[in-house]
């Protein structure tokens, strides 16, 4: 059995090697005005929101759930923060920016709680429960921005998404912090086991003494928060909030990143490091496509094939169909009744 990071790392390495062959300066990192510049830094910087959302999504998927509303949460928090700042007298005031950030994060927690309540409390299927917020959330974001693009000119707010700390983009540090917290909490405490057990069988976990509902709500809360932070980074990077387009397709990219990272959509197992690599693969892919000069929209076609191939590799039936060619004996009954893993 190969290590679970084998395939994701191979894909990432292949992409990077391709880039290197295409453009030998791809790996070069220069220092300019006390910043580090280079394609690799760009990938990390622009990939930060996706990385955050994917980390949250990993935990949700580990409980056999899914959160389709992250894109809408990204739009809502960005809109909320920009609205608060644009209403203030002095847009650079630290207090104002802190209030805006705090308000948005509380809002994203509330939205996460709503999802968690629907899934764990009311017992609606996760896809459907979060679909509600996905549909309504874009409307709410538009409502906050009154259908316009709110622009702010606050250097303190801009620091979140475009600031520089120790020569690296500040957003990278946010991602690193969230990743560290998430992996410590899930791998050094029992929470990770709880999540996996709930993902395997909620009823059995409850009987074993795990508060399955609380675990589920916590996971959606965390995912909401991650999406909220991503929304702040995204809107602060461009100093504006667009209720319509901010975070568009993020839910799909995040799910894709999680799946590429080796986390199964059937729940019960998750790999945070895999997710990070998955998100980096997606971001590198996007950068590569921009660099080669094909229209960026074609990324979608490539993504489609990546999703398909990754899912086929994960599919037991597909592997069996290939391995089955070498098998001599077949059990018809085994073939007909699907095993639910």
């Amino acid at each position, binding site marked *: 059995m190969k290590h679970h990071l084998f395939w994701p790392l191979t894909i990432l390495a292949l992409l990077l090697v391709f880039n290197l062959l295409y453009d030998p300066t791809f790996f070069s990192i220069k220092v300019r005005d006390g910043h580090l510049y280079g394609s690799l830094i760009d990938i990390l910087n622009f990939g930060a929101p996706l990385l955050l959302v994917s980390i949250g999504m990993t935990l949700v998927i580990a409980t056999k759930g*899914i959160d389709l509303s992250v894109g809408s949460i990204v739009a809502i928090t960005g809109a909320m923060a920009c609205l608060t700042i644009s209403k203030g007298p002095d847009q650079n005031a630290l207090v104002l920016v802190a209030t805006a950030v705090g308000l948005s994060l509380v809002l994203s927690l509330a939205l996460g709680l709503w999802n968690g309540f629907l899934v764990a409390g*009311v*017992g*609606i*299927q996760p*896809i*459907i*429960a979060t*679909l*509600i*917020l*996905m*549909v*309504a*959330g*874009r*409307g*709410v974001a*538009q*409502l906050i921005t*009154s*259908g316009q693009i709110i622009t702010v000119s606050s250097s303190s707010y801009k620091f979140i998404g475009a600031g520089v700390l120790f020569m690296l983009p500040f957003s990278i540090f946010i991602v690193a912090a969230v990743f560290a917290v998430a992996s410590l909490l899930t791998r050094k405490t029992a929470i990770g086991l709880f999540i996996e057990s709930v993902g395997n069988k909620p009823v059995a976990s409850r009987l074993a003494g795990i508060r399955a509902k609380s675990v589920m709500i916590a996971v959606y809360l965390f995912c909401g928060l991650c999406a909220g932070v991503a929304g702040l980074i995204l809107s602060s990077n461009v100093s504006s909030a667009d*209720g319509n387009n901010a975070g568009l397709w993020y839910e*799909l990219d995040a*799910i894709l990143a999680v*799946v590429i990272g080796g986390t199964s*959509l059937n729940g019960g197992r998750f790999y945070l490091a895999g997710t990070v690599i998955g998100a980096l693969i997606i971001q590198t892919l996007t950068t590569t496509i921009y660099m080669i000069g094909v*229209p960026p*929209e*074609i*990324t*979608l*076609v*490539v*993504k*489609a*094939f990546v*999703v*398909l191939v990754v*899912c*086929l590799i*994960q*599919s*037991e*039936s*597909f592997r069996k*169909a290939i391995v089955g060619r070498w098998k001599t004996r077949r059990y018809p009954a085994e073939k*007909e*009744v*699907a095993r639910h893993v």
Partner: protein
Amino acid sequence: MFKRQHLPIIVTLALFVFMFIAGSFRYTGFFSTQVLLNLFIDNAFLLIVAIGMTFVIVSGGIDLSVGSVIALTSMISASLLQEGWSPAAVIPLVLLLGSLFGSGMGAIIHYFKIQPFIVTLAGMFLARGLCYVISTNTITINNAFYTSVAQTKVYLPGGNFVSISVIIALLLFVLAFYAAHYTRFGRNTYAIGGNEQSAVLMGLPVARTKIGVYLFSGFCSALGGVVLTFYMLSGYGLHAIGMELDAIAAVVIGGTLLTGGFGYVAGTLFGVLIQGAIQTIISFEGTLSSWWTRIVIGLLLFLFILLQRLFSSRQLLQKHRA
């Protein structure tokens, strides 16, 4: 005769009637046959797509690719017409392509046991991406046949009119209604949605039915794309973005259970009409912005899912007692 299982569809119907009456009392000029017919005219393609989606959801799956397939259809039609192809060749070709696309996804879902959600997601990316491979710009259509279909008004007795798209949609509706309730294919679909394992053990043709369901959905999306092309007279990669959500919402509001195995094609019709009515009311109100549509649809989704939840848990209890 009133049956328990008709409750969701009656709620949907009542809601639509209520919205229409409320609109009529509030706004002058709302209560007219033409406003009602306009609901059909403006939502013909949504109805077509939602009918296909109903079958998929009844079979226990989901199809996220519909919006992209519509866009791809509009794009292929527009570019082929520009090349000078005849509409008589273009329309059957895109319908065939849509069906092939759908059945391909269905085959992957069935044979490799990958979740429909993820497969159709890939389909959605693929179709949307292929649009941009054709062109990233709008391609306008000035084919004589298309413009004449777009402008034709079919007059009904009483001076009101509908478009040809509405007639296509209603024909498809009748066909789907018949297929769902009076054919073997329809019964098999319900059986698979109820419990796939049991359907296999009962010896039903699960593979054929499942692939057939996605084929039908692909066909409906392509047909919806053709109708949208009549409506928009252009092909564009950004057409019908978010359409899959509208279609799913219409199906759910129509009372179909998202867990599969239960639902009515007729409910979907009213689900689509309710969405249309929301838009019409918002445009009549004038001061409300269009994004309220999404919020109201979200709220309705929430209410109907809650209702389903209550309904299905009661039904399950009754089954257990029996």
